């Protein structure tokens, strides 16, 4: 199994297109950091325009922690598309090249093949997230410095002490990993049905785009279906950046508001992963491999 996993990882990382994702993430993060370094204060002034009517905000609002949050907010919607490029190709790509039948002639079960391929997709996803964390968090801290973080939510602002932020990012990246593996699982599942990788990649992207739009649209008629969309739960990482308050409205350091909802969201995503993996094994075991 371990050997099979290593072979699958070798296959993924020997393709030049795998590194497109890493390059794209580096480029996008770099562009956002460059833009905010040059003109970040205009962005902050816009976001804080309501607050600055009543309050003077002193200190370094635009620091590495806030930059990382802005980057994640923008990129975690698009990174799934980069993950799909690999996960949607894992089975269908082999079918397209005609190597799938050859692979299954080896003395390994179909379940092992699926688990190895899915394991490789998961490792690729995690490495991409670590790469993103290095650029978005650590590089931003180097460029913009450290400090308290202001989380600008729709109806209120959360001020997090600088010493209370890093662990939240670790938790958020952990949650993002679950969310991204869910995306990988969808692409992987769809790739079983196709003999060409374009189909599952485009289908997964379409699902993500459509569901994301439905999840973010603040129209009452869509509110009923939102809890059933995995994209609604994918942004649960943001929950780690909200805190509980005391009766006199003082934020409790180290607390997380609605932790139960975050855990439920993570649970829903994990169920998606398990369900899709089981479905993938079930479908693949019964699949008539003709290519």
């Amino acid at each position, binding site marked *: 199994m371990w050997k099979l996993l290593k072979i699958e990882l070798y296959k993924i990382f020997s393709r030049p297109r795998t590194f497109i994702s890493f390059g794209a993430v580096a480029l996008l993060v770099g562009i956002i950091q460059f833009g905010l370094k040059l003109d970040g204060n205009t962005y902050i002034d816009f976001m804080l325009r309501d607050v600055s009517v009543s309050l003077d905000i*002193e200190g370094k609002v635009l620091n590495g922690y806030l930059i990382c949050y802005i980057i994640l907010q923008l990129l975690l919607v698009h990174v799934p598309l980069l993950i799909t490029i690999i996960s949607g190709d894992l089975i269908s790509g082999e079918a397209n090249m005609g190597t799938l039948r050859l692979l299954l002639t080896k003395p390994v079960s179909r379940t092992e093949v699926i688990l190895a391929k899915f394991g490789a997709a998961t490792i690729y996803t995690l490495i991409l997230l670590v790469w993103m964390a290095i650029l978005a968090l650590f590089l931003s801290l180097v460029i913009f410095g450290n*400090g*308290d973080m202001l989380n600008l939510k729709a109806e209120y*602002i959360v001020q997090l002490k600088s010493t209370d932020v890093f662990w939240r990012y670790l938790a958020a990246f952990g949650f993002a990993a679950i969310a991204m593996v869910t995306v990988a699982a969808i692409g992987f599942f769809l790739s079983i049905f196709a003999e060409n990788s374009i189909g599952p990649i485009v289908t997964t992207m379409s699902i993500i785009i459509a569901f994301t739009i439905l999840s973010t649209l603040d129209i009452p008629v869509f509110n009923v279906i939102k809890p059933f969309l995995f994209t*609604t739960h994918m942004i649960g990482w943001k929950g780690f950046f909200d805190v509980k308050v005391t009766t006199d409205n003082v934020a409790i350091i180290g607390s997380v508001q609605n932790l139960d909802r975050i855990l439920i969201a993570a649970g829903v995503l994990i169920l998606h992963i398990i369900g899709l993996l089981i479905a993938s094994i079930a479908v693949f075991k019964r699949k008539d491999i003709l290519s």
Partner: protein
Amino acid sequence: MKKMMRQWLCVGLLVSVAGISPVAANAQDVTVLVQKVKAKLEKVSNYVAEGKMKTDVAFIKAPAGKVKIYYKQPNKFKLKRDGGISLLPKGGVSVNMNSLLTDNNYMAIDAGEALLDGKKVRVVKLLPTSENSDVVLTTLYIDEPNLLIKKASTTTRENGTFEMAMEYGKFASYALPDKVIFAFNTKDYKLPKGITMEFDTGDKSKDGKMKNKKGRVEIQYTSYVINKGIPDSEFL
């Protein structure tokens, strides 16, 4: 007849002078009182204070944090929070009393006495004489025997009304409070959910609190270093 009229005029004048003179005397008294308070405040030419700040604004969740406050005459004031970001009431830059009495461009009017926390205080209204002043009216509640401002309410053109309540202790001899509670009006805060892409937790617990438009900043001072000099660079 003429003589009688002259007598009546004299009586009328005497009555009116008698009626006005206590007001004039009181105005003079409170001006002296305000000057005495100011003189007491001016004993402190600079200070560095440490304390703990709590912010209670409906749309802000902020932790209590340690602050360092720098003051230098006539009106330099800087509040630094450990970790960096501090949210202070607009226009209330100077969460201190000195700023209210920095110049002499005001007219003091006696508004009688009042009870504040069970203690008798003199109420003095300060009207700015300059037409361009942002401050429209300041009401001071002065503890006369100790020459301490216990409470101040300031109405401004731009930033509404804010109130300061002071509690004194160890540093009362310098007119420096141990605790300042600053109350001010806030406006609405809202960002489109399309921008923030919120994680919907269905939490409505803050909805009621959001309607509270009064903000509060509380600073509990723990120490003062008085008149030891502060470089101007601290205020940059």
